[in-house]
Protein backbone atom coordinates (compact mmCIF):
# COMPACT_ATOMS: atom_id res chain seq x y z
CA UNK A 1 0.00 0.00 0.00
CA UNK A 2 2.56 2.49 1.10
CA UNK A 3 4.96 1.15 -1.50
CA UNK A 4 2.58 1.74 -4.38
CA UNK A 5 1.95 5.20 -3.03
CA UNK A 6 5.67 5.88 -3.02
CA UNK A 7 5.92 4.70 -6.62
CA UNK A 8 3.12 6.97 -7.79
CA UNK A 9 4.82 9.83 -6.01
CA UNK A 10 8.06 8.96 -7.72
CA UNK A 11 6.52 8.73 -11.16
CA UNK A 12 4.77 12.04 -10.53
CA UNK A 13 8.09 13.57 -9.78
CA UNK A 14 9.50 11.91 -12.87
CA UNK A 15 7.15 13.84 -15.13
CA UNK A 16 9.26 16.68 -16.54
CA UNK A 17 6.60 19.34 -15.99
CA UNK A 18 6.14 18.37 -12.35
CA UNK A 19 9.87 18.14 -11.99
CA UNK A 20 10.23 21.70 -13.28
CA UNK A 21 7.56 22.95 -10.90
CA UNK A 22 9.19 21.18 -7.98
CA UNK A 23 12.64 22.40 -9.00
CA UNK A 24 11.39 25.98 -9.14
CA UNK A 25 9.98 25.64 -5.64
CA UNK A 26 12.91 23.98 -3.89
CA UNK A 27 15.88 25.44 -5.74
CA UNK A 28 15.96 28.73 -3.77
CA UNK A 29 15.84 26.80 -0.50
CA UNK A 30 18.55 24.41 -1.58
CA UNK A 31 20.72 27.27 -2.73
CA UNK A 32 20.18 29.15 0.52
CA UNK A 33 20.97 26.15 2.72
CA UNK A 34 24.06 25.44 0.62
CA UNK A 35 25.26 29.02 1.04
CA UNK A 36 24.70 28.93 4.82
CA UNK A 37 26.48 25.60 5.16
CA UNK A 38 29.39 26.91 3.15
CA UNK A 39 29.59 30.02 5.31
CA UNK A 40 29.55 27.96 8.51
CA UNK A 41 31.91 25.34 7.13
CA UNK A 42 34.44 27.85 5.84
CA UNK A 43 34.33 29.81 9.09
CA UNK A 44 34.92 26.63 11.07
CA UNK A 45 37.73 25.57 8.74
CA UNK A 46 39.54 28.85 9.05
CA UNK A 47 39.04 29.23 12.79
CA UNK A 48 40.67 25.87 13.57
CA UNK A 49 44.34 25.85 14.26
CA UNK A 50 46.79 24.46 11.76
CA UNK A 51 48.23 21.00 12.11
CA UNK A 52 51.54 20.99 13.99
CA UNK A 53 53.21 19.15 11.10
CA UNK A 54 51.51 20.61 8.08
CA UNK A 55 50.74 24.11 9.27
CA UNK A 56 48.08 26.07 7.46
CA UNK A 57 48.19 23.86 4.37
CA UNK A 58 46.01 21.33 6.13
CA UNK A 59 43.09 23.63 5.35
CA UNK A 60 43.25 22.51 1.74
CA UNK A 61 41.82 19.29 3.08
CA UNK A 62 38.45 20.97 3.74
CA UNK A 63 38.03 21.51 0.01
CA UNK A 64 39.95 18.51 -1.24
CA UNK A 65 38.31 15.70 0.69
CA UNK A 66 34.69 16.75 0.04
CA UNK A 67 35.44 17.27 -3.66
CA UNK A 68 37.00 13.82 -3.89
CA UNK A 69 34.02 12.30 -2.13
CA UNK A 70 31.66 14.13 -4.48
CA UNK A 71 33.56 12.94 -7.53
CA UNK A 72 32.70 9.41 -6.54
CA UNK A 73 29.18 10.08 -5.41
CA UNK A 74 28.45 11.79 -8.71
CA UNK A 75 29.44 8.65 -10.59
CA UNK A 76 27.12 6.65 -8.36
CA UNK A 77 24.28 9.06 -9.11
CA UNK A 78 25.05 8.67 -12.81
CA UNK A 79 25.06 4.89 -12.55
CA UNK A 80 21.66 4.95 -10.82
CA UNK A 81 20.30 7.25 -13.52
CA UNK A 82 21.77 4.94 -16.15
CA UNK A 83 19.78 2.07 -14.70
CA UNK A 84 16.74 4.35 -14.86
CA UNK A 85 17.43 5.00 -18.52
CA UNK A 86 17.93 1.38 -19.48
CA UNK A 87 15.31 -0.29 -17.34
CA UNK A 88 12.46 2.21 -17.14
CA UNK A 89 13.45 4.23 -20.23
CA UNK A 90 12.60 7.37 -18.39
CA UNK A 91 13.52 10.65 -20.08
CA UNK A 92 14.34 12.31 -16.76
CA UNK A 93 16.96 9.66 -16.07
CA UNK A 94 18.51 10.48 -19.47
CA UNK A 95 18.63 14.13 -18.50
CA UNK A 96 19.96 13.29 -15.06
CA UNK A 97 23.09 11.45 -16.11
CA UNK A 98 23.77 13.79 -18.97
CA UNK A 99 23.61 16.76 -16.59
CA UNK A 100 25.72 15.03 -13.94
CA UNK A 101 28.72 14.22 -16.13
CA UNK A 102 30.16 17.77 -16.39
CA UNK A 103 29.52 18.29 -12.67
CA UNK A 104 31.40 15.10 -11.85
CA UNK A 105 34.26 16.18 -14.08
CA UNK A 106 34.34 19.57 -12.36
CA UNK A 107 34.43 18.11 -8.85
CA UNK A 108 37.08 15.62 -9.90
CA UNK A 109 39.14 18.44 -11.35
CA UNK A 110 38.81 20.37 -8.08
CA UNK A 111 39.91 17.29 -6.17
CA UNK A 112 42.91 16.81 -8.46
CA UNK A 113 43.93 20.48 -8.41
CA UNK A 114 43.65 20.82 -4.64
CA UNK A 115 45.40 17.51 -4.20
CA UNK A 116 48.22 18.77 -6.35
CA UNK A 117 48.40 22.05 -4.40
CA UNK A 118 48.44 20.12 -1.17
CA UNK A 119 51.06 17.75 -2.48
CA UNK A 120 53.56 20.51 -3.23
CA UNK A 121 54.19 21.50 0.42
CA UNK A 122 53.66 17.99 1.77
CA UNK A 123 55.50 15.80 -0.68
CA UNK A 124 57.61 18.47 -2.34
CA UNK A 125 56.19 17.82 -5.76
CA UNK A 126 53.07 18.77 -7.66
CA UNK A 127 52.11 15.29 -8.65
CA UNK A 128 52.66 11.92 -7.05
CA UNK A 129 51.55 8.67 -8.63
CA UNK A 130 49.83 7.86 -5.41
CA UNK A 131 47.15 5.17 -5.64
CA UNK A 132 44.31 7.52 -4.74
CA UNK A 133 45.42 10.34 -7.01
CA UNK A 134 45.85 7.90 -9.87
CA UNK A 135 42.40 6.38 -9.42
CA UNK A 136 40.82 9.81 -9.29
CA UNK A 137 42.74 10.79 -12.40
CA UNK A 138 41.39 7.76 -14.27
CA UNK A 139 37.91 8.67 -13.06
CA UNK A 140 38.46 12.15 -14.49
CA UNK A 141 39.38 10.65 -17.86
CA UNK A 142 36.22 8.54 -17.78
CA UNK A 143 34.07 11.61 -17.14
CA UNK A 144 35.69 13.40 -20.06
CA UNK A 145 35.13 10.40 -22.31
CA UNK A 146 31.44 10.32 -21.38
CA UNK A 147 31.05 14.04 -22.04
CA UNK A 148 32.77 13.60 -25.41
CA UNK A 149 30.45 10.73 -26.29
CA UNK A 150 27.36 12.73 -25.34
CA UNK A 151 28.50 15.64 -27.47
CA UNK A 152 29.31 13.43 -30.45
CA UNK A 153 25.77 12.08 -30.82
CA UNK A 154 22.98 14.22 -32.10
CA UNK A 155 19.97 12.09 -31.20
CA UNK A 156 19.58 12.74 -27.46
CA UNK A 157 17.66 9.62 -26.52
CA UNK A 158 20.08 7.32 -28.31
CA UNK A 159 23.04 9.17 -26.84
CA UNK A 160 21.48 8.71 -23.42
CA UNK A 161 21.05 4.98 -23.86
CA UNK A 162 24.53 4.21 -25.14
CA UNK A 163 26.23 6.44 -22.60
CA UNK A 164 24.15 4.75 -19.90
CA UNK A 165 25.65 1.44 -20.98
CA UNK A 166 29.12 2.89 -20.88
CA UNK A 167 28.49 4.40 -17.44
CA UNK A 168 27.42 1.02 -16.10
CA UNK A 169 30.36 -0.81 -17.66
CA UNK A 170 32.64 1.79 -16.11
CA UNK A 171 30.86 1.47 -12.78
CA UNK A 172 31.42 -2.28 -12.69
CA UNK A 173 35.04 -1.63 -13.54
CA UNK A 174 35.73 0.87 -10.78
CA UNK A 175 36.48 -1.74 -8.08
CA UNK A 176 38.82 -3.60 -10.45
CA UNK A 177 40.57 -0.39 -11.32
CA UNK A 178 40.89 0.64 -7.71
CA UNK A 179 42.30 -2.76 -6.82
CA UNK A 180 44.76 -2.83 -9.70
CA UNK A 181 46.00 0.68 -9.04
CA UNK A 182 46.53 -0.17 -5.36
CA UNK A 183 48.43 -3.30 -6.35
CA UNK A 184 50.50 -1.37 -8.87
CA UNK A 185 51.25 1.31 -6.34
CA UNK A 186 52.43 -1.02 -3.61
CA UNK A 187 54.60 -2.75 -6.17
CA UNK A 188 56.36 0.42 -7.19
CA UNK A 189 56.53 2.55 -4.07
CA UNK A 190 56.02 0.70 -0.81
CA UNK A 191 53.78 2.86 1.37
CA UNK A 192 56.06 5.81 1.84
CA UNK A 193 53.37 8.42 1.45
CA UNK A 194 51.87 9.85 4.59
CA UNK A 195 48.17 9.29 4.56
CA UNK A 196 45.42 10.77 6.62
CA UNK A 197 43.43 7.77 7.73
CA UNK A 198 39.93 8.36 9.05
CA UNK A 199 40.77 7.28 12.57
CA UNK A 200 43.75 9.57 12.96
CA UNK A 201 41.71 12.66 12.23
CA UNK A 202 41.27 14.80 15.28
CA UNK A 203 37.76 15.84 16.28
CA UNK A 204 38.88 19.41 15.83
CA UNK A 205 39.38 18.74 12.12
CA UNK A 206 36.46 16.37 11.81
CA UNK A 207 33.62 18.79 12.45
CA UNK A 208 34.54 21.37 9.85
CA UNK A 209 35.21 18.54 7.42
CA UNK A 210 31.76 17.07 7.95
CA UNK A 211 30.07 20.44 7.53
CA UNK A 212 32.05 21.08 4.38
CA UNK A 213 31.20 17.63 3.04
CA UNK A 214 27.52 18.33 3.64
CA UNK A 215 27.84 21.73 1.98
CA UNK A 216 29.53 20.21 -1.06
CA UNK A 217 26.91 17.48 -1.31
CA UNK A 218 24.12 20.03 -1.24
CA UNK A 219 26.02 22.14 -3.74
CA UNK A 220 26.16 19.16 -6.04
CA UNK A 221 22.45 18.48 -5.79
CA UNK A 222 21.59 22.15 -6.29
CA UNK A 223 23.75 22.33 -9.39
CA UNK A 224 22.46 18.99 -10.60
CA UNK A 225 18.82 20.06 -10.35
CA UNK A 226 19.68 23.32 -12.09
CA UNK A 227 21.53 21.53 -14.87
CA UNK A 228 18.64 19.11 -15.32
CA UNK A 229 16.21 22.01 -15.50
CA UNK A 230 18.34 23.70 -18.15
CA UNK A 231 18.58 20.50 -20.13
CA UNK A 232 14.80 20.04 -20.06
CA UNK A 233 14.32 23.63 -21.21
CA UNK A 234 16.86 23.08 -23.97
CA UNK A 235 15.03 19.99 -25.18
CA UNK A 236 11.70 21.79 -25.09
CA UNK A 237 13.12 24.56 -27.21
CA UNK A 238 14.51 21.99 -29.65
CA UNK A 239 11.14 20.25 -29.83
CA UNK A 240 9.37 23.56 -30.51
CA UNK A 241 11.83 24.50 -33.23
CA UNK A 242 11.46 21.12 -34.85
CA UNK A 243 7.70 21.49 -34.75
CA UNK A 244 7.94 24.92 -36.36
CA UNK A 245 10.14 23.55 -39.14
CA UNK A 246 7.79 20.66 -39.84
CA UNK A 247 4.67 22.80 -39.84
CA UNK A 248 6.26 25.32 -42.20
CA UNK A 249 7.19 22.50 -44.55
CA UNK A 250 3.64 21.24 -44.48
CA UNK A 251 2.19 24.63 -45.44
CA UNK A 252 4.49 24.89 -48.43
CA UNK A 253 3.45 21.50 -49.77
CA UNK A 254 -0.25 22.17 -49.69
Amino acid at each position, binding site marked *: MSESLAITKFSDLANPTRFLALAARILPWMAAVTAILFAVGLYMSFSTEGDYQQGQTVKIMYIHVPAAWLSMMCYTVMALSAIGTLVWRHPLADVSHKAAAPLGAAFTLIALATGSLWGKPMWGTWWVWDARLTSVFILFLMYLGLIALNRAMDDPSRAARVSAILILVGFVNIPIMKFSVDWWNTLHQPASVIRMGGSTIDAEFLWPLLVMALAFTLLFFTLHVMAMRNEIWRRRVTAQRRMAA*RLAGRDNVR
Partner: protein
Amino acid sequence: MRLIAENLSARRGEDLLFQGISFALEAGECLILTGRNGSGKSTLLRVIAGLLRQETGKVTWHSAKAESDMRAAEACHYLGHRNAMKAELTVAENLSFWKSLFGDFEGGRGMSVGEAAEAVGLGGIAHLPFGYLSAGQQRRMAFAKLLVSHRPVWILDEPTAALDVTAEEVFTTLIKAHLAEGGIVLAATHQPLGLEDARELKMVGFAGVMEEVW
Protein backbone atom coordinates in the same frame (compact mmCIF):
# COMPACT_ATOMS: atom_id res chain seq x y z
CA MET B 1 0.25 -18.30 -39.98
CA ARG B 2 -0.45 -14.67 -39.28
CA LEU B 3 1.60 -11.58 -38.69
CA ILE B 4 -0.27 -9.11 -36.54
CA ALA B 5 0.66 -5.53 -35.80
CA GLU B 6 -1.35 -3.67 -33.23
CA ASN B 7 -1.47 0.05 -32.61
CA LEU B 8 2.13 0.69 -33.69
CA SER B 9 3.69 4.09 -33.32
CA ALA B 10 7.30 5.06 -33.69
CA ARG B 11 9.41 8.14 -33.75
CA ARG B 12 12.53 9.23 -35.45
CA GLY B 13 14.53 11.52 -33.22
CA GLU B 14 11.83 13.57 -31.54
CA ASP B 15 9.32 13.38 -34.39
CA LEU B 16 6.45 10.98 -34.15
CA LEU B 17 6.36 9.45 -37.62
CA PHE B 18 3.18 7.42 -37.36
CA GLN B 19 0.77 6.21 -34.75
CA GLY B 20 -2.02 3.73 -34.35
CA ILE B 21 -1.07 1.47 -37.25
CA SER B 22 -2.68 -1.96 -37.06
CA PHE B 23 -2.94 -4.76 -39.56
CA ALA B 24 -3.07 -8.53 -39.76
CA LEU B 25 -1.57 -10.50 -42.62
CA GLU B 26 -2.57 -14.09 -43.35
CA ALA B 27 -0.58 -16.61 -45.33
CA GLY B 28 -0.35 -15.58 -48.98
CA GLU B 29 -1.13 -11.92 -48.35
CA CYS B 30 0.91 -8.94 -49.39
CA LEU B 31 0.97 -5.43 -47.96
CA ILE B 32 2.44 -2.56 -49.96
CA LEU B 33 3.46 0.61 -48.18
CA THR B 34 3.36 3.75 -50.26
CA GLY B 35 3.99 7.38 -49.52
CA ARG B 36 6.52 10.08 -50.22
CA ASN B 37 10.08 10.12 -48.93
CA GLY B 38 10.37 10.48 -45.20
CA SER B 39 6.80 9.38 -44.60
CA GLY B 40 7.91 6.56 -42.32
CA LYS B 41 7.78 3.56 -44.66
CA SER B 42 11.28 2.39 -43.82
CA THR B 43 10.75 3.11 -40.15
CA LEU B 44 7.61 0.98 -40.05
CA LEU B 45 9.40 -1.88 -41.78
CA ARG B 46 12.32 -1.64 -39.36
CA VAL B 47 9.93 -1.66 -36.42
CA ILE B 48 8.30 -4.83 -37.75
CA ALA B 49 11.72 -6.38 -38.27
CA GLY B 50 12.54 -5.60 -34.65
CA LEU B 51 15.37 -3.24 -35.55
CA LEU B 52 13.75 -0.14 -34.12
CA ARG B 53 11.87 0.07 -30.90
CA GLN B 54 8.27 1.18 -31.24
CA GLU B 55 6.81 3.75 -28.88
CA THR B 56 3.57 1.86 -28.46
CA GLY B 57 1.97 -1.32 -29.75
CA LYS B 58 3.39 -4.70 -30.64
CA VAL B 59 4.12 -7.04 -33.51
CA THR B 60 3.32 -10.69 -33.01
CA TRP B 61 3.71 -13.84 -35.04
CA HIS B 62 1.19 -16.64 -34.77
CA SER B 63 1.43 -20.11 -36.21
CA ALA B 64 0.62 -23.62 -35.12
CA LYS B 65 4.11 -24.44 -33.91
CA ALA B 66 5.43 -21.04 -32.86
CA GLU B 67 6.24 -20.47 -29.23
CA SER B 68 4.12 -17.73 -27.77
CA ASP B 69 6.97 -15.44 -26.77
CA MET B 70 8.88 -15.66 -30.05
CA ARG B 71 10.03 -12.41 -31.56
CA ALA B 72 8.24 -11.80 -34.85
CA ALA B 73 11.58 -10.78 -36.37
CA GLU B 74 12.77 -14.39 -36.31
CA ALA B 75 10.16 -15.31 -38.91
CA CYS B 76 11.27 -12.50 -41.20
CA HIS B 77 13.70 -11.83 -43.97
CA TYR B 78 14.66 -8.18 -44.24
CA LEU B 79 16.01 -6.61 -47.40
CA GLY B 80 16.96 -3.04 -46.57
CA HIS B 81 18.47 -0.26 -48.63
CA ARG B 82 21.86 -1.81 -48.12
CA ASN B 83 22.65 -5.20 -49.50
CA ALA B 84 24.35 -6.76 -46.45
CA MET B 85 26.95 -8.41 -48.69
CA LYS B 86 30.71 -8.03 -48.40
CA ALA B 87 32.45 -6.65 -51.47
CA GLU B 88 35.65 -8.56 -50.60
CA LEU B 89 34.04 -11.98 -50.60
CA THR B 90 32.70 -13.83 -53.62
CA VAL B 91 28.96 -13.99 -54.16
CA ALA B 92 28.94 -17.69 -53.33
CA GLU B 93 30.84 -17.10 -50.09
CA ASN B 94 28.42 -14.34 -49.13
CA LEU B 95 25.36 -16.42 -49.87
CA SER B 96 26.57 -19.57 -48.19
CA PHE B 97 27.53 -17.56 -45.10
CA TRP B 98 24.02 -16.17 -44.82
CA LYS B 99 22.54 -19.58 -45.60
CA SER B 100 24.33 -21.22 -42.70
CA LEU B 101 23.79 -18.29 -40.34
CA PHE B 102 20.07 -17.98 -41.07
CA GLY B 103 19.22 -21.66 -41.02
CA ASP B 104 15.72 -22.62 -42.11
CA PHE B 105 12.57 -21.52 -40.39
CA GLU B 106 10.08 -24.27 -39.61
CA GLY B 107 7.96 -25.43 -42.52
CA GLY B 108 10.20 -24.90 -45.50
CA ARG B 109 13.64 -25.23 -47.00
CA GLY B 110 15.89 -22.75 -48.72
CA MET B 111 17.40 -23.24 -52.14
CA SER B 112 21.04 -24.05 -52.61
CA VAL B 113 23.33 -21.14 -53.39
CA GLY B 114 23.57 -22.08 -57.06
CA GLU B 115 19.80 -22.40 -57.46
CA ALA B 116 19.25 -19.05 -55.78
CA ALA B 117 21.72 -17.31 -58.08
CA GLU B 118 20.01 -19.02 -61.02
CA ALA B 119 16.61 -17.86 -59.77
CA VAL B 120 17.63 -14.19 -59.87
CA GLY B 121 19.01 -14.76 -63.34
CA LEU B 122 22.72 -14.56 -62.53
CA GLY B 123 23.66 -18.22 -62.42
CA GLY B 124 27.07 -17.99 -64.03
CA ILE B 125 28.80 -15.35 -61.92
CA ALA B 126 28.50 -16.58 -58.35
CA HIS B 127 32.24 -17.22 -58.19
CA LEU B 128 33.09 -13.52 -58.66
CA PRO B 129 33.78 -11.16 -55.77
CA PHE B 130 30.61 -9.27 -54.90
CA GLY B 131 32.36 -5.94 -55.37
CA TYR B 132 32.91 -6.63 -59.09
CA LEU B 133 29.18 -6.74 -59.81
CA SER B 134 27.20 -3.78 -61.11
CA ALA B 135 24.72 -2.06 -58.79
CA GLY B 136 21.78 -3.86 -60.38
CA GLN B 137 23.48 -7.24 -60.18
CA GLN B 138 24.38 -6.60 -56.56
CA ARG B 139 20.77 -5.86 -55.76
CA ARG B 140 19.68 -9.09 -57.44
CA MET B 141 22.23 -11.09 -55.48
CA ALA B 142 21.04 -9.43 -52.28
CA PHE B 143 17.59 -10.66 -53.21
CA ALA B 144 18.97 -14.16 -53.72
CA LYS B 145 19.82 -14.03 -50.01
CA LEU B 146 16.08 -14.35 -49.29
CA LEU B 147 15.93 -17.58 -51.28
CA VAL B 148 18.79 -19.51 -49.68
CA SER B 149 16.94 -19.94 -46.41
CA HIS B 150 13.27 -20.20 -45.69
CA ARG B 151 11.44 -17.45 -43.84
CA PRO B 152 7.66 -17.08 -44.12
CA VAL B 153 7.71 -13.27 -43.99
CA TRP B 154 9.66 -11.09 -46.40
CA ILE B 155 10.16 -7.47 -45.48
CA LEU B 156 11.35 -5.55 -48.52
CA ASP B 157 12.42 -1.91 -48.38
CA GLU B 158 12.49 -0.45 -51.90
CA PRO B 159 13.47 -3.79 -53.41
CA THR B 160 13.43 -2.57 -56.99
CA ALA B 161 15.22 0.75 -56.63
CA ALA B 162 18.03 1.04 -59.20
CA LEU B 163 16.79 -1.92 -61.24
CA ASP B 164 15.80 -2.20 -64.87
CA VAL B 165 12.48 -3.56 -66.11
CA THR B 166 13.58 -7.17 -66.64
CA ALA B 167 15.05 -7.37 -63.16
CA GLU B 168 11.80 -5.99 -61.78
CA GLU B 169 9.94 -8.74 -63.54
CA VAL B 170 12.24 -11.33 -62.01
CA PHE B 171 11.52 -9.89 -58.57
CA THR B 172 7.80 -9.82 -59.14
CA THR B 173 7.84 -13.45 -60.22
CA LEU B 174 9.79 -14.45 -57.11
CA ILE B 175 7.51 -12.50 -54.81
CA LYS B 176 4.46 -14.07 -56.43
CA ALA B 177 5.97 -17.53 -56.04
CA HIS B 178 6.62 -16.80 -52.36
CA LEU B 179 3.03 -15.67 -51.87
CA ALA B 180 1.70 -18.71 -53.72
CA GLU B 181 3.58 -20.95 -51.30
CA GLY B 182 1.79 -19.27 -48.44
CA GLY B 183 4.37 -16.62 -47.62
CA ILE B 184 3.72 -13.09 -46.43
CA VAL B 185 5.28 -10.02 -48.04
CA LEU B 186 5.57 -6.50 -46.72
CA ALA B 187 7.11 -4.07 -49.14
CA ALA B 188 7.74 -0.35 -49.29
CA THR B 189 7.96 0.95 -52.79
CA HIS B 190 7.69 3.89 -55.15
CA GLN B 191 7.12 1.82 -58.28
CA PRO B 192 4.15 -0.51 -58.59
CA LEU B 193 5.43 -4.05 -58.21
CA GLY B 194 2.78 -5.53 -60.50
CA LEU B 195 1.06 -7.47 -57.76
CA GLU B 196 -2.66 -7.55 -58.42
CA ASP B 197 -4.34 -8.32 -55.12
CA ALA B 198 -1.95 -6.59 -52.76
CA ARG B 199 -3.29 -4.46 -49.98
CA GLU B 200 -1.99 -0.95 -49.77
CA LEU B 201 -1.15 1.17 -46.76
CA LYS B 202 -0.56 4.82 -47.48
CA MET B 203 1.88 6.46 -45.14
CA VAL B 204 1.56 10.22 -44.66
CA GLY B 205 4.37 10.82 -42.24
CA PHE B 206 4.90 13.22 -39.38
CA ALA B 207 2.20 12.63 -36.84
CA GLY B 208 3.61 15.30 -34.53
CA VAL B 209 6.46 16.10 -32.22
CA MET B 210 6.58 14.04 -29.06
CA GLU B 211 5.67 17.03 -26.98
CA GLU B 212 3.95 15.15 -24.22
CA VAL B 213 7.36 13.97 -23.07
CA TRP B 214 8.95 17.36 -22.81
